[in-house]
């Protein structure tokens, strides 16, 4: 088990990167503490699998270093890095039994049969694979096979980290939940560093203590699920995480006051002056918008029921502001106003959050 740190990392799949768009991964620095549960979240093609393959050693980064603990492993092949990886599609050795599959990584490393047997049985018990140990791996269901893939990572007691590349993609929805809780449980038991790549926010937020959100080859924000929810550092994080996503409304900023549609809006921290000419926006999640007696005048355009609450779309001129209203709470009539909870309202310039000015 080791702390994983990436320094000045960049990667391109081209011979030579000519402009910014050629970099599959733009320069990034990241640290994952030993024994932590982490997620890499982002849309398809954002570079998260590239990053994962760099950590596992399947890819060598164009620039920068990968360290496990104090050791520089940038140039090492995957087997020398002592990591395990679970892929999107379950990888099992078809001709082997479940037992042999689990024993394979140990036998390849020349570990004596007695220890192999003990370890395989221990891991099989953790993964509820015991009854199938003697079966052919090829005969198992997709979730069973994915457990074997995971098991081959877990059997190696000294593994530095386990990497997951969208491991639940081919699993039936009702089994996804079970496998996910299993993962969480295993992490709490074994305290192995785990990095989980996904484009599904629910998977990321329920699994990880630390989530790294990526977009277009960049790390947009790294933080706890609560931080990502309450204080998105980029409007992308605002609407990628949350359901429905954050309201992002055009704004102006004059004399220390941010305005939306001409109405003054208070933000969590009084922002410093944004760079001149930047595109300004106010971001606030639907959870933190309320109907009130004064504020931005709106007309209710649509309301849809999700069970726990209603998502109301309030219209001001051509803009839609979404808000959540609890089940059973009455909606105001034709003329209504909305206001934002200042604690969770942020000003963004060109998509990035505007930090607070000096108090």
């Amino acid at each position, binding site marked *: 088990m080791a702390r994983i740190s990436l320094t000045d990392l960049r990667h391109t799949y081209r011979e030579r990167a000519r402009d910014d768009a050629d970099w599959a991964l733009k320069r990034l620095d990241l640290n994952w503490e030993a024994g932590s549960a982490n997620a890499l979240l982002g849309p398809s093609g954002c570079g998260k699998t590239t990053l994962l393959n760099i950590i*596992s050693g*399947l890819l060598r980064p164009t620039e920068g270093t990968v360290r496990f603990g104090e050791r520089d492993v940038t140039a090492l*092949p*995957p*087997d020398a890095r002592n*990591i*395990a*990886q679970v*892929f*999107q*599609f379950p*990888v099992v*050795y*078809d*001709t*082997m039994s479940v037992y042999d599959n689990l024993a*394979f*990584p140990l036998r*390849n*490393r020349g570990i004596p049969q007695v220890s192999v047997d003990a370890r395989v049985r221990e891991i099989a018990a953790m993964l509820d694979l015991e009854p199938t140990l003697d079966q*052919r791996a*090829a*005969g198992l269901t997709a979730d069973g096979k994915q457990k074997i*893939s995971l098991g*081959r990572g877990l059997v190696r007691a000294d593994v530095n980290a386990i990497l997951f590349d969208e491991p639940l993609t081919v699993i039936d929805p009702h089994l996804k939940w079970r496998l996910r809780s299993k993962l969480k449980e295993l992490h709490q038991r074994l305290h192995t560093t785990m990095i989980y790549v996904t484009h599904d926010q629910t998977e990321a937020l329920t699994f990880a203590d630390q989530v790294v959100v990526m977009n277009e080859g960049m790390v947009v924000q790294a933080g706890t699920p609560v931080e990502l929810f309450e204080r998105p550092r980029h409007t992308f994080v605002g609407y990628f995480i949350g359901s429905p996503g954050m309201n992002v409304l055009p704004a102006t900023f004059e004399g220390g006051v941010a305005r939306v549609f001409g109405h003054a809006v208070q933000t969590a921290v009084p922002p410093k002056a944004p760079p001149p000419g930047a595109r300004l926006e106010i971001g606030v999640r639907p959870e933190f918008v309320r109907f009130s007696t004064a504020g931005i005048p709106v007309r209710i355009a649509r309301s849809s029921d999700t069970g726990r609450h209603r998502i109301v779309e309030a219209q001001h001129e051509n803009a839609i502001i979404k808000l959540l209203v609890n089940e059973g709470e009455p909606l105001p009539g034709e003329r209504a106003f909305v206001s934002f909870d200042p604690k969770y309202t942020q000003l963004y310039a060109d998509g990035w959050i505007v930090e607070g000015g000096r108090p």
Partner: protein
Amino acid sequence: MSTKIPNQKGWLLVLPVVVLVAFNAIIPLMTVINYSVQETFGENVFFFEGVKWFEAVLHSSRFHLALQRQLLFTGIILAIEVPLGVAIALAMPRRGPWVSICLVLVAMPLLIPWNVVGAMWNLLALPDIGLLGRTLNAMGINYNYTRQPFAAWATLIAMDVWHWTSLVVLLAYAGLSAIPDAYYQAAKIDGASSGAVFRYIQLPKMKRVLTIAVLLRFMDSFMIYTEPIVLTGGGPGNATTLLSIDLVKVALGQFDLGPAAAMSLIYFLIVLLLSWIFYTVMTKDEVQ
């Protein structure tokens, strides 16, 4: 609830297939079966003979020898072509511009008509003017495939390997290309040696296509006619007289329709039986 309306028009739709199968399989086969149990002295006069021809063929040492030669030939070419084909497929690039170049080069022998292959090798191997024959003799090897049975066999096998290994290569390559990268990556992470990768990933994943390759090569080589008849004509003596060549000699050379028909049927049953055995053995532990 619903009443079925009898409609026999469906038979009309099946008719073309029935006619086709009848003309290209059932009727010719029936003719052969018909011949196999009768004797004729020409002028379309036939006498029923029962299983006499079958007994005669099964007891004739000529048939036994041809069958042994056939089994030997098929055994040798399978033992060479399957491992060689797999080895070439493994050595071929998996991506990049060389893939299509390699594929075209490999597929080339398959595009040449069979009798042309025979003629090419015939010319190539001629001891006095052929490139191969002359070179071998110049190197001090006494080589003359028209006189030496061993040389004839070697040439025949070399020709078949040249002509048909490509088929195994293409099938094996297709099987290899279908293996997702994740398998190789997982094997790398699991610390598997390249031998283990072959044994536990590549070979199992190629198994289906290799089954097809072995079956095709078995059936084709067991029925081979054109290339050896052009190359050696079954000689020297009867050294390379394979089953099909012998059959043609009996049927068209001697015009013994009865024995030839009986021989055809036995031949057909042997191919069928061996194919079935191959298939059953190779797929016996497949997971359903």
